[in-house]
């Protein structure tokens, strides 16, 4: 009885130093992961806005990659229909491509208002879910 108790006490005592280095080794990585996790959740709840310059670059490259557009004509101020020669159906497709690029859904009433690169950039940069 006393032996068993002593043994258990010894084993629990022995376990502690073994666990410590592992915890210490993990300590270096865990807080980083935890911080990343925390920051991503707070970003989602608070909403983080993308930098307008970065949005503009990505919008321009999406439009340039659209097959019906002449890449040379794409400027940050280009209007889809007047400057790029796109029709309303093309515009719907371009806006869908923006959704894919920025990973969020643009509702119909907002999508209707996007008719130029500038309006697309303004909308996406003011949208908290754009990534």
């Amino acid at each position, binding site marked *: 009885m006393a032996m068993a108790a002593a043994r258990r006490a010894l084993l629990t005592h022995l376990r502690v130093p073994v666990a410590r280095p592992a915890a210490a080794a993990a300590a270096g990585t865990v807080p980083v992961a935890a911080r990343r996790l925390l920051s991503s959740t707070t970003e989602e709840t608070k909403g983080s806005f993308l930098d307008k310059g970065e949005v503009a670059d990505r919008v321009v490259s999406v439009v340039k990659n659209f097959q019906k557009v002449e890449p040379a004509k794409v400027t940050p101020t280009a209007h889809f229909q007047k400057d790029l020669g796109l*029709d309303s*159906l093309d515009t*719907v*497709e371009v806006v*869908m491509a923006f959704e*894919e690029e920025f990973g969020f859904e643009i509702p*119909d009433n907002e999508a*209707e208002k996007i008719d130029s690169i500038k309006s697309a950039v303004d909308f996406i940069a003011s949208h908290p879910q754009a990534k």
Partner: protein
Amino acid sequence: MAALAAPTRAEALSLFRSLLRTAKQFSDYNIREYTRRRAADAFRENRALPDAPAAAAAFAEGKKQLEVAKRQAVVYSLYAPKSKSVMELKVQ
């Protein structure tokens, strides 16, 4: 019949958007691209219909196709391809 009224421009574009959204849900590259292309082609083909009944009929057909696409996206998701199409691989 209420279906004879021509759809508004916004309604037509909204149907087009819904079709494109549904097309994206297909797990198979070929079906996904076909659905997207088919929707775009059909809307271009019917862009200048002569009268309201023709436009209404095309719109009703489009809505029917949207239901088909939605249903098929679910069915096909049960038989998703195990590997990606070569077209989906990014060149590195």
